[in-house]
C-alpha cells in the first residue's frame, strides 16, 4: 500500500515548529515539563560518553532475551502441536500460568537471581516465549488440512510433514506475534532496568529522573525509540524475504463500496 508521507511530514514539521517556538521564544512552559530543542542538544552533549555503553547494554538484554524467547516460544508451540502427550501434560499448566503478568515476576527474579543481566534477559525471554508459544500453536492448528493430506499422500511421515509443510507455512502467520513480542521485549527491558540495574538506557533514565533532568530523559527516550523502530524494520525486512511466496492482497480500501 503506497502511503503518502507528505501529510504526516507536514503535520510533524508543524508540531516541531510550534514546540520550538514556544520553548525557545516564550516562557509559557517550564523547562522541567517541556525542554526546548536546545536543552535537548545540551543534554545529549553532556551524556555523550555514557550513551553508547548504555545503549549496548540495553540492546544486549533485549536482543538476547528476544532471541532466547523466540526459540523457546516457537519450539514450545511446535512441540505442543506435534505431540499430543506433551500437549496434554504441559498445556493446562501453561494455560493456568499464562495470565500472570510477566512484570509481576520482577521482584521474585530479583530475589532469586539478584541484580544483574541474567534475570533481565530471563524476564524478556519469558515474556516473548509466552506470546510466541500461543501464536505458534494456533498457527499450526490453522493449517489448511489439504496441505497435510497432500504431503501425506506424497509419502511424507509425521516428522517430514512438520519439517517441510508446517514450519514454512506458519512463518507468515506468526510474524504479527513476532513484532508484538519485539515491542514487548523493549518494555520488559525497561521495566527490569527500572527495578534493579546498574547499566542500560532505562537505568540512566531513572538517574536523570532523580536529578529532575527532563531533557536527559527525553534524549534517552528518543534513542530507545530509534532502537525499537530499527528492530521492527529489521523484522519486517526478514519477514519480506521469508514470505515472498504468500498470496498477500494488495488491497487498499479506498474506493471500495457502493458508488452513489
Amino acid at each position, binding site marked *: 500500500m503506497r502511503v503518502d508521507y507528505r501529510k504526516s511530514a507536514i503535520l510533524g514539521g508543524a508540531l516541531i515548529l510550534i514546540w520550538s517556538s514556544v520553548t525557545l521564544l516564550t516562557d509559557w512552559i517550564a523547562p522541567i515539563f517541556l525542554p526546548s530543542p536546545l536543552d535537548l542538544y545540551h543534554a545529549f552533549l553532556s551524556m555523550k560518553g555514557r550513551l553508547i555503553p548504555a545503549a549496548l547494554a540495553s540492546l544486549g538484554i533485549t536482543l538476547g532475551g528476544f532471541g532466547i524467547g523466540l526459540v523457546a516460544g516457537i519450539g514450545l508451540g511446535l512441540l505442543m502441536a506435534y505431540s499430543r502427550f506433551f500437549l496434554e501434560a504441559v498445556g493446562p499448566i501453561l494455560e493456568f500460568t499464562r495470565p500472570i503478568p510477566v512484570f509481576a515476576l520482577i521482584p521474585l527474579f530479583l530475589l532469586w537471581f539478584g541484580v544483574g543481566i541474567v534475570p533481565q534477559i530471563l524476564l524478556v525471554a519469558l515474556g516473548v516465549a509466552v506470546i510466541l508459544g500461543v501464536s505458534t500453536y494456533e498457527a499450526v492448528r490453522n493449517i489448511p488440512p489439504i496441505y497435510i493430506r497432500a504431503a501425506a499422500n506424497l*509419502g511424507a511421515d509425521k516428522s517430514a510433514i512438520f519439517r517441510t509443510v508446517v514450519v514454512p*507455512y506458519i512463518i507468515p502467520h506468526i510474524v504479527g506475534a513476532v513484532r508484538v513480542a519485539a515491542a514487548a521485549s523493549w518494555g520488559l527491558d525497561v521495566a527490569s532496568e527500572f527495578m534493579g540495574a546498574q547499566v542500560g538506557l532505562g537505568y540512566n533514565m531513572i538517574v536523570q529522573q532523580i536529578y529532575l533532568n527532563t531533557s536527559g530523559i527525553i534524549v534517552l527516550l528518543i534513542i530507545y525509540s530509534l532502537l525499537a523502530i530499527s528492530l521492527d524494520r529489521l523484522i519486517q525486512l526478514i519477514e519480506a524475504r521469508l514470505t515472498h511466496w504468500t498470496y498477500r492482497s494488495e488491497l487498499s480500501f479506498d474506493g471500495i463500496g457502493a458508488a452513489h
Partner: protein
Amino acid sequence: MIELKRLSFAYQGRNGLLPVFEDIDLVVETNEFFCIIGPSGCGKSTLLKIVAGFEKPSSGVVTHNGVKIKGISPKRAMVFQDDAVFPWLTVQQNVEYGLKVRGIPIERRRAESRRLIDLVGLTGFEALYPKQLSGGMRKRVDIARALANQPQVLLMDEPFGALDAMTKEMLQVELTRIWESEPKTVLFITHDVEEALFLGDRVAIMPPHSSGGTLEIVEVPFKRPRDVSIKEDPEFQRMRRQLILRFEQFRKSKAS
C-alpha cells in the same frame, strides 16, 4: 485393479447414522480410465477418499490388486479440486517433493522433475512460485507432482472443477495425452457429463443415496487417441443427453 465390495459409508449424525451410500460393488480394471459422475452430495468424493485411504468405510472392503487398502500410499496418488500445490515451493520443488521426502538422490530427482514438467507443458516455469501461476498452471503442477511418485493409480476429485471452460478443455486434452503416453489406472470424479464422456473408457453413474450392488455403467465407444472434435459427434451428444436424462429420472423418483 481396484475393487469395491459391498462398500458402505454413513456419517455419524446427532440422531444416528446418516447413510451416504450402501453396498456398492465396483471393479476398475488396470490402466483403465474410469469416470464416476453424479450430482453434488451423492458421495462420490467420499468414495474416492475411501479408495485413497483418507477415510474408512462403514462396512465393506476396497482392494488394490487384491490387497485390502488400509491407508494412504504414494502408489495411489490423489489430485484434489482445491489448490494443493505448496505455495512456499517453486514449481520444480513442488514436483520433486514426493521424491525428496522419500530420499531419492538429487540427480534422479532433477531428471525426473524435468521430464514431468515437460510432460505437463510447463518447461521454462520451473523457478516460479505458485502465486505467479494461473489456476490451470497450478493444476498442472499438481498433476506432475502426483505423477512423480510413479503411482499405479491416479485418483482425481473434480480436478478441473474450479477452472474456466477453456482452461478446463485444454487440461482435459492434456490429461488424455499424458495418460495415453504413460498408462495407469485412473479413477476420475466429476459432475460434468461431457467431461466424463470425453475422458473415460467407462462411465459410472452415481445417484444420491446409492444402495445395493453395481452402479449403472456406460461403455464409451470412441476410439483413442481422442480429439476434442468428438464432442460435436452426434453419438457423443446422444450419450450425453441420455446420461443427463438418467439423472433427471433419479431425481424424480427420489421426489416421489
